């Protein structure tokens, strides 16, 4: 499916509820990412009795970030389990459930909370296949919220993409819009490996958080997958490649709109999967444009942006026309005060500045 058409349309909030029935070639109803995730879980739970969901406040509340709306009423407390505040135990339990043939989906409410349960994620889930010589898979999904920009300070605002993408055995995905959210969640559930499904709070569609409206796009009510490991070109351009994911995709598209008026034709890639990285798609685009700018709202050093740029540089397949560039959050804890946090986050304007600099001739 071509995402560029949908992401460039401004969603009408009135149409965020389901209005269409059946499989539409061009679905008319628009969903928030939260609703799209909930729908993906509902359909997979209907299809596959092995799928179950566990986490804090995912039952009666439907998820703090709305990822499990309607599931408890439909599937009951055996398959939709509100857990104690015990991430080590319930994420560890997911590893055991997966080994026993189930398909657990667990929610880590904020990615920042990974500190209390990382062993289950990176030493157990990520290595189960390897340590068993491929005989015991770990088909589980860990969904978790990422991102700041709303004043929630340093323990509730981090992205930590690279922290997870760094670890062999984990797949990491992050949708920029509700269409991809549904398809990636279905793909994640069906994948035989542990998949970390990140959703960005600025896109989630929770009224109390504010939402980038372009993340609310038409979503088919059919069951479809967005393949893990495949980036998509959100917007084609000749002059420069902006590599993005999650919230950054919308900043990149806005940046492309700004620069179009200045005669710079920006190509925007939405990675959708952070691990495994779609290096072919990145290289293909940069081979065409000869310039690369990466937007990444995670910490700067040792980040995904660095990995992407290194991959391009070491490929030997591209002669860059300008030094590669990354627009990132700096190497500091996320500060609380908006006067400190917001100017440091990537934005369309900052990205446009970085892209313009690609066309300033080097001394």
């Amino acid at each position, binding site marked *: 499916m071509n995402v560029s058409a949908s992401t460039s349309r401004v969603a009408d909030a009135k149409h965020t509820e389901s209005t269409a029935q059946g499989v539409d070639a061009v679905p008319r109803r628009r969903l928030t990412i939260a609703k799209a995730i909930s729908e993906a879980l509902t359909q997979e739970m209907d299809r596959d009795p092995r799928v179950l969901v566990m986490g804090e406040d995912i039952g009666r509340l439907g998820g703090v970030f709305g990822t499990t709306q309607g599931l408890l009423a439909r599937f009951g407390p055996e398959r939709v389990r509100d857990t104690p505040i015990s991430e080590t135990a319930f994420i560890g339990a997911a590893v055991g459930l997966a080994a026993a043939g189930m398909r657990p989906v667990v929610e880590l409410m904020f990615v920042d909370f990974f500190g209390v349960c990382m062993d289950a994620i990176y030493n157990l889930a990520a290595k189960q296949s390897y340590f068993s010589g491929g005989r015991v898979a770990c088909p589980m999904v860990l969904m978790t919220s990422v991102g700041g920009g709303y004043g929630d300070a340093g323990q509730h605002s981090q992205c930590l993409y690279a922290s997870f993408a760094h670890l062999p055995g984990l797949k990491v995905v992050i949708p920029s819009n509700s269409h991809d959210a549904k398809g990636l969640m279905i793909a994640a559930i069906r994948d035989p490996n542990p998949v970390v499904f990140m959703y960005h709070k600025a896109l989630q569609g929770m*009224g109390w958080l504010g939402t980038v409206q372009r993340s609310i796009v038409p979503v088919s009510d059919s069951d479809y997958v967005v393949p893990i490991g495949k980036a998509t070109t959100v917007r084609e351009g000749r002059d420069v490649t902006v590599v993005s994911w999650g919230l950054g995709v919308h900043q990149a598209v806005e940046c492309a709109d700004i620069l179009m008026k200045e005669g710079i034709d920006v190509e925007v890639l939405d990675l959708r999967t952070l691990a495994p990285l779609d290096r072919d798609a990145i290289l293909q685009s940069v081979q065409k444009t000869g310039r690369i700018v990466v937007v990444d709202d995670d910490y700067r050093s040792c980040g995904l942006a660095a990995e992407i740029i290194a991959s391009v540089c070491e490929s030997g397949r591209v002669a860059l026309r300008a030094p590669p560039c990354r627009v990132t959050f700096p190497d500091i804890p996320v*500060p609380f005060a908006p006067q400190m946090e917001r100017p440091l986050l990537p934005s369309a304007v900052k990205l446009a500045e970085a892209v313009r600099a690609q066309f300033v001739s080097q001394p």
Partner: protein
Amino acid sequence: MRPERERRLWMYSMMVKSRAYEQAIKPAYLEGKQPVFNMANGPIPGEMHLSDGQEPCAVGVCAHLGPRDTVTATHRPHHIAIAKGVDLRAMTAEIFGRRSGLAGGRGGHMHLFDPRVSFCCSGIIAQGMGPAVGAALAAKLAGDARVAVSFIGEGAANQGAFHEALNLAAVWSVPVVFVIEDNAYGISVSKRESTAVERNAVRAHSYNMPGVFVPGNDPDAIYEAAGDAIARARRGEGPTLIEIETCRLEGHFMGDAEQYRPQGEVQRLKASDPISRYRQQLISDGIAAAELDALEQSAARDVSDAFAFARSAELPTVEEAFHHVFATGAV
């Protein structure tokens, strides 16, 4: 030991100051968030966890603590910070994200550090417990009578850190008191649905330490239980777990629709507000209403002074975000 008159008046004054503080936070937090509630907006963005109803826990425990006794608190910290003597102006400035805040606006309401009175808090459930064990070990190694107190919610008793910290504190026999503020909910999930035991106090027995349950959300009863535990710790007799039955009169955070609460629960809880009950108790024990009124007025003045200070304080610049990532100088 029952609290004496002056201690009771102090506890009342701290409770009313804490409540006045939360009453002042509410409209300030909602500025810029109406008619459409967006957590990112207004002079105080982000999550806001109010402590209305839990004041007795803070005052009954902190009445026994001095500025060199360590307290680690939770994501819901205001009542404890106030009872521990955290600088109210600097705390408020921090919550407003100002340069003169406790951390210069870097931490916000869940990350209040005031080393002057050995207070800190954190937004990660149960994770203040290990540091409290460390503070207690430092006191023990120094050979003085300082203690550490770690406040947690009842939900934290299901975290691994809770069990590890209790065991370690007992093995090392350090002067630490773990205080569970049981307000019955971890966000939307009730204790009954999440906890294998009816009373978390019994878990102390697994770690060979006293476990004390204090019902009734009553400052005097909490004062007594905490006094015993803290005196025991100061005598070098090791840790104690105290479980306090308290209540949360507001949502988990501001903006919480609270649909998980049984109908009428909040009204019922508010009808037995611990502050009104304590006021009645003090009056029936012969303390003049006028004296309590004066404490309330004084609390209101302190709060309004702190808010005025915070609102007029300077905003930080973006460059300041880069300061203090690493400590400098000798330690």
